[in-house]
């Protein structure tokens, strides 16, 4: 796996969520994602950035353009040092929300990408990593 390009951005305000969406859109377009797939990865990033900000008390997004053999992709990592998730399986269920949200962020983001990985430790924080291939 080859790392083509990497950058990171803060997720400390709802404006940062908008900026994160715009950066993901730009990188996805430059990598050659079609419009529907751009829309999917941008939507997934919006959900995960909001989770890091709303539930995780703020964090960062790391964005990486990667290459594996003859395919290129976008890898996004959302990291926070918030309260963590006690039951990940439950959190992934559609409709489950501890904050009156729709509860579609985690499960929905997972459906919109090719790879989805989540790690969370109560009291330490949460890291979600997604990959979408062009």
């Amino acid at each position, binding site marked *: 796996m080859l790392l083509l390009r990497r950058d990171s951005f803060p997720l400390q305000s709802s404006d940062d*969520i908008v900026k994160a969406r715009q950066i993901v859109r730009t990188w996805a377009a430059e990598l050659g994602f079609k419009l*529907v797939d751009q*829309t*999917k990865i*941008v939507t997934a990033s919006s959900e995960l950035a909001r989770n890091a900000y709303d539930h995780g008390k703020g964090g960062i997004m790391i964005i990486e353009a990667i290459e594996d053999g003859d395919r290129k992709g976008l890898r996004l990592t959302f990291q926070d040092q918030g309260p963590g998730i006690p039951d990940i399986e439950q959190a992934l269920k*559609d409709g489950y929300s501890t904050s009156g*949200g729709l509860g579609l962020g985690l499960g*929905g983001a997972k*459906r919109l990408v090719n790879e989805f990985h989540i790690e969370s430790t109560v009291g330490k924080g949460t890291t979600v990593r997604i990959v979408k291939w062009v």
Partner: protein
Amino acid sequence: MEQIPILKLGKFLLVTIQVDMHDQLALRLQDELTNRIVKENAKGVLIDISALEIVDSFIGRTLANIAAMARILDAETVVVGMQPAVAITMVELGLSLPGVRTALNVERGMEILSSLVQVDSDAPPPA
């Protein structure tokens, strides 16, 4: 402070969302629309989202809330102009917009609003 303009068109309100809304702005739009429906005694709300590049669960919830609130205030809501890529993504996200009517464009949306409101409240013109 940023604002999303709300235009009055007869008994309807027209909102064209032209910016990538951050969450606070979406909430403010929800509040302002509710106030304007009451103030103008509006019978319908048309929300043009053709410039929106995504509808995530927060924006989706905001649109559904606006429709629910409008309904309580006796006004209908139609969302128009959703881009195909946005619609496809919404389905995969698992997002449905309960209580929200959709139409292809502003003209179709206005037709729907007019017909709904006529059936609802307008007395037929004298013969």
